[in-house]
């Protein structure tokens, strides 16, 4: 029994071609036409019906919708502030989420307090939903720590930089949730690039075999630094799941409502013992990979411009306005709140002290280590020697 991929296949060469293969590149199958996305709001902000997922946003109120809008606006504002703080030298680096607000807020707001989130390094919007103070996120980008919050306070794990690793941590955590008999779920974020890492595949395998309550949330923002998604896969990423025995869904990642609905569906499945699911949120990285990156080296600005028309915030705004769910006053207040957030972030970052030098040795071990003790003492004595010399 053959399972054919859904990719368009190159017709077999006629034998008159001499059987010689041209370069693999030429022979590679064409990208398939884009599969259907789950979408509840069109780019113009029109609500469209979806038989499968409408129920997950059935009870949503105008207040909720304004809340989602506010989350996206504030997240974008925070993100912009961080970018400019990097420009000003207050941060060493920043990884902007610009364009991915709906993917992050929609999924983040689908989680329950007792759920647990494993982010990459770009989930500032999810952190926001989890109640992590955004200024906490800046420590590692400023270089004062490698992770500035207690993961257990908001059930939001530390940012993970090494691509894909956290999907296994999420799976293990979810195995623990199941062992505990709890009905929480776990959600693991990763990127289109990350989908190629062996660790992600192993996470799929473990989660399926143990039927762990984990949702794999892939933000396919079309790029892994300079590499387009074609360098990672020749079929849509959400299809990866089926070969591991769990469902995969592609959702319009710029449609906050659709993301919310699909993520709720997946988390609910996980909670009720149906095991893992993969969500591919189809979105776009509007900015550079990080502030160190220069996308003009590798991508055409046309692409970005085309995606601007699908902006997640404008889309929800259009819907709110057309439904009469928000008035001028709401937008004005939010604008003020944005400014205040920006200001607070700026102030907190600028006041963020450098860590104590001895922090080098802190927390290397939980129970201590003789060599660390020895080196700490030497280091302290060495530092003291400068003080003795009156600062050499």
């Amino acid at each position, binding site marked *: 029994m053959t399972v054919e991929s859904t990719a368009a296949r190159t017709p077999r060469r006629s034998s008159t071609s001499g059987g010689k293969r041209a370069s693999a590149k030429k022979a590679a199958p064409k990208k398939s036409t884009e599969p259907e996305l789950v979408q509840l709001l069109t780019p113009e902000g029109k609500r469209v019906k979806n038989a499968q997922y409408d129920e997950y946003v059935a009870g949503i109120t105008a207040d909720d919708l304004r809340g989602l809008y506010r989350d996206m606006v504030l997240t974008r504002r925070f993100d912009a502030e961080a970018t400019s703080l990097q420009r000003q030298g207050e941060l060493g680096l920043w990884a902007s989420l610009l364009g991915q607000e709906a993917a992050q807020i929609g999924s983040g707001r689908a989680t329950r307090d007792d759920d647990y989130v494993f982010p990459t390094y770009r989930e500032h919007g999810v952190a926001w939903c989890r109640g992590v103070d955004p200024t906490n996120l800046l420590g590692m980008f400023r270089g004062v720590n490698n992770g500035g919050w207690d993961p257990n306070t908001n059930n939001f794990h530390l940012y993970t930089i090494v691509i894909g690793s956290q*999907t296994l941590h999420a799976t293990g955590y979810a195995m623990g949730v199941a062992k505990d008999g709890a009905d929480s779920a776990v959600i693991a974020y990763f990127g289109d690039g990350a989908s190629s890492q062996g660790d992600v595949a192993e996470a799929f395998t*473990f989660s399926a075999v143990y039927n762990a309550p984990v949702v794999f949330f892939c933000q396919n923002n079309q790029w892994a630094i300079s590499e387009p998604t074609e360098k990672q896969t020749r079929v849509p990423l959400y299809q990866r799941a089926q070969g591991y025995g769990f469902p995969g869904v592609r959702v319009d990642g710029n449609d906050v409502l659709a993301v919310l609905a699909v993520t709720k569906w997946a988390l609910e499945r996980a909670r009720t013992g149906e095991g893992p699911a993969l969500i591919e949120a189809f979105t776009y990285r509007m900015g550079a990979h990080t502030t160190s990156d220069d996308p003009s080296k590798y991508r055409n600005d046309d692409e970005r411009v085309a995606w601007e028309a699908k902006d997640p915030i404008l889309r929800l705004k259009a819907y709110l306005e057309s439904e009469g769910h928000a008035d001028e006053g709401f937008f004005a207040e939010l604008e003020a709140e944005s400014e205040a957030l920006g200001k607070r972030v700026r102030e907190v970052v600028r006041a963020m002290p450098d860590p104590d030098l001895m922090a080098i040795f802190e927390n290397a071990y939980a129970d201590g280590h003789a060599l660390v003790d020895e080196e700490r003492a030497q280091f302290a004595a060495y530092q003291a020697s400068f003080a003795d010399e009156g600062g050499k």
Partner: protein
Amino acid sequence: MGVQKLPIAKAINESLRTALENDPKVLIMGEDVGKLGGVFRVTDGLQKDFGEDRVIDTPLAESGIVGTAIGLALRGYRPVVEIQFDGFVFPAYDQIVTQLAKMHARALGKVKMPVVIRIPYGGGIGAVEHHSESPEALFAHVAGLKVVSPSNSSDAYWMMQQAIQSNDPVIFFEPKRRYWDKGEVDKDAIPGPLHKAGVVREGTDLTLAAYGPMVKVCLEAAAAAAEEGKSLEVVDLRSMSPIDFDTVQSSVEKTRRLVVVHEAPVFLGTGAEIAARITERCFYHLEAPVLRVGGYHAPYPPARLEEEYLPGLDRVLDTVDRSLAY
């Protein structure tokens, strides 16, 4: 319970059993650890008695095993992971050095990583490739990990108890060719600290330092040397990270000579660090440079050559003679 005579493999088995009994958060994970009880039977009977939820046969993927163990630790569990053989730990190396070792520091101490990684290691069992390696230096160099290896049944039992109780990740190297060596285990004893070395034979002319499978070789060498009138002290290091340099130093201050023995290649093996540090600490005491006996800088050879590759009695004694000749 009293004192029992147990082979090392069984001592570890009993230690795991005790841990499973005492703490519901302790889990055993690995390939074939369940029904089979592991290829060396170290986990024999545990799944039967504690169930599949506590003693978990995993998919065949070492990165996945360690990566999920990290997640389980984040959830409050204390996983004891088995890597089937030394040569198969490398697929998990990234998760070990990049995640497991650094998570506590990354979280500024807010999370702990009480994960034990058991690795049957070393040669001498006539195995095929990848089944006889000694990669301990590759872990000891990495901050955030602790690395230990017992040489006898009592240590096997107690060090495993302590490794499981440790809030830091411990790489637990088990001397596979000594699995069947019997020794006394007193389950009512009060063990010394996990990372403390022990003088297992006293002597005055030279110190031999070793750990895991090489302790026995060193003891035999000391016995042989005694017949020739040379008095060798043997230090069982027990821990490769941290290394108990104080104990080695005390010994060397007395004997003034040190030979370090391990199966791992000499070049950048743990002996290099011991030589460097003891030379610094005992510069005016040493009558000879610290000498090292270990594997060569070549891939572990096929079984029919391993006797020549591994440090044995003759090579140890030869090196002792070289040291004494200074």
